[in-house]
């Protein structure tokens, strides 16, 4: 099996729109945007593809502070990912071409993925009760 080489470079949050515009001009394809909730920031990764080569851009967006510029000006396809960031994580964005304002996903709880990762197995499992007989 081949393990892909996946270069990762860090980009300032304010510069991401320019970065994406440069990628678009270079003929790259937007592959995905993913987000991980850290304790005090969101760790976003923008992936681009050109001729089967992957390039990742990492953005650390603080929870407070200036909203993240949208990349929908260069990649319209970004609107699904960015609305997802807004709905699931509560990342604030500016300049979205198509803003659903939190209505893209219909959720029980607001921004359910915003909490940072916790590793706990639920103590009480609502599973079968071991009662003798039957």
């Amino acid at each position, binding site marked *: 099996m081949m393990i892909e080489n*996946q270069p990762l470079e860090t980009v300032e949050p304010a510069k991401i729109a320019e970065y994406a515009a440069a990628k678009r001009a270079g003929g790259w394809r*937007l592959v*995905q945007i993913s987000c991980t909730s850290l304790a005090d920031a969101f760790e976003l990764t923008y992936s681009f593809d050109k001729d089967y080569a*992957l390039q990742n851009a990492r953005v650390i967006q603080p929870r407070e502070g200036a909203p993240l510029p949208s990349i929908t000006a260069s990649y319209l396809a970004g609107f699904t990912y960015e609305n997802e960031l807004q709905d699931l994580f509560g990342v604030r964005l500016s300049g979205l071409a198509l803003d659903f304002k939190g209505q893209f996903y219909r959720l029980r709880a607001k921004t359910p*993925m915003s909490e940072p990762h916790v590793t706990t197995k639920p103590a009480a499992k609502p599973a079968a009760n071991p009662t003798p007989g039957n």
Partner: protein
Amino acid sequence: MGARTIIPFGPQHPVLPEPIHLDLVLEDEKVVEAIPSIGFIHRGLERLAEKKDIHEMAYVSERICGICSFTHGMGYCTAIEAVMKIDVPERGHYLRMIWSEMSRIHSHLLWAGLLADGFGFENLFMQSWRLRERILDLIEETTGGRVIFGSCKIGGSRRDIADDVMARLLKELASLEKDCHAITDTFMEDSTVAKRTRGVGVIAPDDAIALGAVGPMLRASGVASDSRSLGYALYPELSFAPIVEKDGDCWARTAVRVREIYQSFDLIRQCAAKMKPGPVDVKVSGNPSGEYWARLEQPRGEVIYYVKGNGTKNLERYRVRTPTFANVPPLVHMLKNIDLADVPVIVLTIDPCISCTER
């Protein structure tokens, strides 16, 4: 200019077995805009990685979607194996490729049936699904499940295919391939199918790239992009070339998928010829630490599994970007300035898989 009307499409709609909601803005019979809204079947399984350990997540991954289930399990395992630097035995890879190609055949036949139903060709729908049952029988014989295979695990495959079963499988596949021509010829040559699909929902190559289309959508617009060329599993050992059509309309997307059915038959035969006896899995110990973006080609297109391990038995982050999610912007683009009657056909030609999209 007529008055504007908004017609809600879905969530419960006879054309789609799954719920998706579109607000179609109409001017007389013409759709001028479509606004999607998803989330009806959002479960939030990415967050389940906190509660289930890495081995259990393989089963959860398979249940992202019941149609492309095997590739989901395989993609997750590929990502974890890349992080943990696990070397899967050769036979394990070949088995995975055979099952993933079998699931491609079953998915494309299923989709062909749904498309036929979408433009009212009931007979073709029934015939496609009749053939699909034969591939499902083969899947059941080799894996034990019809739609959820449960055959992939971190470190290899959970089952082996015995030689006599393999011989029977190849024989049955050859006969199935012969029978497939009857329905695929209808898709390719029938004038009623062409009337509903030719020139409908055209997407230009540049638009397809800008809007992030993947898989058969992108290939139907003339862009040769197939993640199997990336070299995951043992695809570099097999000879194949991405199938490309140039028109970018519904007919071209149908043609790509129809030709992929036969490509998959060919790939299974190549795998069977190259397979050697040997172990199918390796023992896995330890926990993943690091991150990886695994890219695979599903029946519906490129899929991405991002895993981030922090050295515990639970992943810190598990993210899936499924092909239908990437194909939503092109769908919205295609649904502009078309007739209302073409909406189901266009929606179906992206091969929507909503449970994938919403996870």
